């Protein structure tokens, strides 16, 4: 069973695709984006996070698939 994480914040968060360190917190060891249940983000924040991660993948800051 995956444990539900309590919501981190009630305000809006802006995710920058250049901010690798922050984005890495929201991907698992295989480089997959974590589900909302685990990230504890709101719907809007999760959508913005996903967009930022996908942009970071395009410019090779994050892997599409990680296996190390």
């Amino acid at each position, binding site marked *: 069973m995956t444990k539900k994480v309590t919501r981190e914040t009630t305000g*809006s968060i802006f995710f920058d695709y250049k901010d690798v360190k922050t984005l890495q917190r929201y991907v698992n060891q295989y480089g997959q984006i974590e589900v909302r249940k685990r990230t504890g983000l709101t719907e809007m924040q999760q959508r913005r996070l996903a967009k930022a991660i996908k942009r970071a993948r395009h410019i090779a800051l994050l892997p599409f698939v990680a296996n190390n």
Partner: protein
Amino acid sequence: MKSTYELAVLYHPDLEIDIDKAEAKVSKIVTDNGGEVTNKESWGKRKTAYPVKGHEHAVYVFYALELEGASVQKIESVLNITDEVIRFLIVKQDEKAQSKAASFRAKRKNPDADERPERTERSERSHRSDRNEEGER
């Protein structure tokens, strides 16, 4: 109407020493298409997360641009055939979300008078956790 765009460019790793020439070429592409480079941020040579066109490394440079919406496609088509650039990304800057997040962060650092009752509640909670810590010791 002009708006702010962000351009991320991955240069060929062999160009690290002679990057100025390649950068001049890219900024010329922007200015030729009616754009303007307002800011530049260099990260230098960096390992890529996966091979890009066979290269394990790339020189990362980020630009802030003032562009006409129509010139984005033109710049993209020119960058696609530029050999110095191995990968690029042009996105519109989400100023609304950015400023909203910034104001929220500022509010959190020095909360307004309205939010003070909440704060006392929080300090009570921290008292309790203090006691717990002592108990553990």
